[in-house]
């Protein structure tokens, strides 16, 4: 049996919605954009501002916000997530942000077409959609030896006739790149070709 004060104390440290419950944390965030954005919808400038604020509160001394093509990137000289990427997948509060704070990373995963992050332990593609691969040539963000960078592609960004990167461009691209959206494209294509081919197996 836990006392009331135990419960209150524990709830201070719990995420707003955990992924272990019946609710999908990302789906819950998608239903409640106003938890993060004043206008009740995803707003990339506000997201970048919240990220920069989070980085500063997390001990960074230099924070740079970049806009490259349709991508936004926030770079800091300190890894404000301290290597833990859980904030991309569930709402989490953080001590430096105050009692009712919520890290904004989960909103990026919930709403953006693509999210990539990198720190000294490597690059992690949090999410990407097939369409975001068409804009990967804009993801030309230099990696710092220390600190963290978070890059995100806001939702429903349409570009006019995107040009695929040439082989040379692909070879000299920085280490940030997308693979997940390509994975979805590959599976959807494989499902379609399977349906066409299965008769050939039976008839030789």
């Amino acid at each position: 049996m836990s006392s009331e004060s135990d419960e209150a104390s524990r709830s201070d440290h719990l995420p707003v919605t955990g992924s272990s419950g019946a609710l999908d944390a990302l789906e819950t965030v998608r239903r409640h954009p106003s938890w993060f954005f004043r206008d009740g919808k995803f707003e990339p400038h506000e997201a970048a501002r919240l990220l920069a604020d989070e980085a500063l509160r997390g001990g960074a001394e230099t924070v740079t916000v970049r806009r490259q093509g349709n991508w936004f990137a926030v770079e800091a000289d300190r890894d404000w997530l301290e290597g833990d990427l859980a904030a991309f997948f569930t709402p989490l509060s953080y001590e430096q942000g105050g009692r009712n704070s919520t890290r904004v990373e989960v909103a990026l995963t919930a709403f953006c077409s693509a999210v990539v992050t990198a720190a000294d332990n490597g690059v992690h593609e949090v999410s990407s959609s097939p369409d975001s691969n068409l804009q990967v040539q804009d993801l030309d963000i230099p990696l710092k030896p220390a600190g963290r960078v978070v890059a995100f592609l806001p939702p429903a960004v349409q570009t006019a006739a995107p040009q695929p990167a040439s082989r040379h461009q692909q070879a000299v691209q920085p280490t940030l790149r997308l693979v997940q959206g390509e994975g979805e494209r590959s599976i959807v294509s494989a499902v379609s070709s399977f349906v066409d081919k299965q008769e050939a197996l039976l008839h030789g």
Partner: protein
Amino acid sequence: MAEAPDLTVPFENDRERGVFLADLLYLTTQLDQWRDWSLNIEALSPGQRAQLASAVGPGDTPDLKLQRWITLFDDELRAVSDARNRAVHGIRLSDRELRGAVWLARHLLELVEPADAA
């Protein structure tokens, strides 16, 4: 004949997603086993060979059918393996990708597994 599934349906919750992830891991293990057998059909048990033989058409053999399967569906088998590899390396698969990979793995297996063994 399997018809193309609707992959646009999102998972209702983490539990459903978890079931699909577990299915993907299990089914890809089975697919890997069949890939190995297609390269070394001698490794099949006599019972499995007899079951396979009963499922091939006239003029066909289990060896040929397995060879056709791995040749014809090389891209699809690779796509499923890639999805499994991304999942086990902690990359979150989209709902569409995970649903499609499981559907594909299940139907690839159905083409080679004798019905009463599935």
